[in-house]
């Protein structure tokens, strides 16, 4: 399929590489270089109850990309799902483009939170979850994506403790773990949430069935975290899949 024929009604996961290349201009790297790609696809294809027509619906589900770095996979998924015109992708980082290396919610309808500086998305998500619950919209899900290195920021740990204290069961955090945190997370990332009482799951972050199942688990009365393990930069994709599975 060529770029010109990609429309939201016909496009799918297999179109993401060509869409990403419109931004990266990169012919060498496969889309697997984008650690968030599969999680983003599963969320928008199978989990989130939101459409381009409902970006202002108070009852929509909300996705918060806290790890705002490397948003090309995010933009590609938004384009496939009709939130962004496909034509916008080739304007990436232009002065009149809505697309920069960190997303801006004032430029892209459907982007819930402007991110870039690490450690803001999860605390904001706690506020969004509290705000929706206070308005009787507690059925709307809030899914926040963070990176394993982003968890270094202490603001996340303020949010992790308080989300459980308030029983924010509408909140799901997905941690993309490509093992890039400088000092690592001894005993694993999930434990950092488990000690605060969160429901936890560890999955292979390239396996769509595993991701969909973990993102659909019920966790009444408490938030949940899905740690999506992906290869480290430069590591072979398949070898990690076998290790996690």
């Amino acid at each position: 399929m060529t770029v010109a024929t990609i429309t939201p009604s016909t496009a799918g996961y297999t179109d993401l590489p060509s869409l990403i290349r419109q931004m990266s201009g990169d012919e060498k790297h496969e889309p697997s270089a984008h650690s968030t790609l599969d999680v983003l696809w599963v969320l928008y294809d199978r989990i989130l109850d939101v459409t381009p027509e409902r970006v202002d619906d108070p009852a929509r589900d909300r996705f918060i990309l806290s790890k705002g770095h490397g948003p090309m996979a995010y933009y590609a998924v938004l384009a496939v799902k009709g939130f962004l015109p496909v034509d916008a992708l080739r304007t990436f980082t232009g002065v009149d483009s809505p697309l920069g290396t960190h997303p801006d919610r004032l430029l892209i309808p459907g982007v819930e939170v402007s991110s870039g500086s690490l450690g803001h998305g999860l605390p904001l998500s706690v506020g969004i979850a509290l705000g929706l619950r206070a308005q009787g919209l507690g059925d709307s899900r809030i899914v926040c994506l963070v990176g394993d290195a982003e968890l270094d920021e202490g603001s996340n740990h303020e949010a992790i403790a308080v989300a459980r204290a308030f029983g924010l069961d509408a909140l799901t955090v997905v941690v993309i773990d490509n093992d890039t945190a400088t000092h690592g997370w001894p005993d694993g990332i999930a434990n950092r949430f488990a000690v605060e009482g969160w429901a936890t799951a560890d999955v292979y972050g390239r396996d769509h069935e595993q991701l969909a199942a973990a993102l659909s688990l019920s966790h009444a009365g408490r938030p949940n975290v899905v740690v999506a393990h992906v290869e480290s930069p430069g590591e072979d994709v398949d070898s990690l899949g076998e290790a996690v599975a």
Partner: protein
Amino acid sequence: MSASSTLAESTPVDTMRERFGAVTTEILDRDDSVALVLADISADRFRSVAKRHPDRVVNMGIREQLLVSVGGGLALTGLRPIVHSYAPFLVERAFEQVKLDLGHQGVGAVLVSIGGSYDRVESGRTHQAPGDVAAIGTLPGWTVHVPGHADEAELLLRSAVADSGRVYLRLSERTNGRAQLARPGRAVRVRTGRRGTVVAVGAMLDPVLDATGDVDVTVLYAATVRPFDTHAVRSTLAEPNVVLVEPYLAGTSSHLLTDGLRDTPHRLLALGVRDAELHRYGAVEDHDQAHGLDPAGLRRDITRFLDPAA
């Protein structure tokens, strides 16, 4: 406008912080689009309203980054958050949250601080934030109120909550004897004179009036400094000698005044908290004196400015 048009003539019976507690409680009971976010500070004052509205009165514990971020998240869902703590923790510790989780997201909130510049003089530097207004002043789109009386704090709080923008309401234990403010955002002429204009901000009004009782100057009173009502200064100016007296870092609003007077050759003296860290406890009067903000110090600096050759 003269003193006869002032809002109230009585000495306040409560502090700004007490008034903030009572009025915020009333608003929360009446308006379910308003939420209050706390980080332990003042939580005891809101215990009963928190029981009535547990979803809209939320205490983060001692977590100021989260305090401000949650305010941003609530605003993203359409609520009007009031976010409260001591000035150094609310503005300085969580400054990037103020910048990004409110301003950059394009949402509003009412930040209400207590502590002023050195209300907590016995606590030392950790609980003091004379640079808070200057810091907020680096961010676009903020309204900053510095009330000088509990009645003014109430008026400004009510107007801030009814608005949808980003408002910093800076409360203090220091207070003027009477409220002056009639309309939020507008400076008030308290006295008319011929040799220059002294602009007193917030609780600096009473010391300025004390200091200039027999000095022939116009005294303007401002309880809002972002935006600064430079039009009032321009339109009431007799001689182009302007003294700005702010209860926080000296010169915080100088550039706004000079910009407002850019078509008039003028002299400007900016008084306020000086930038040296004193490493002293003591009483607030000791610090007023150290910064030249007591009536004697103000009088000395203002009269020297008006009569440089004397």
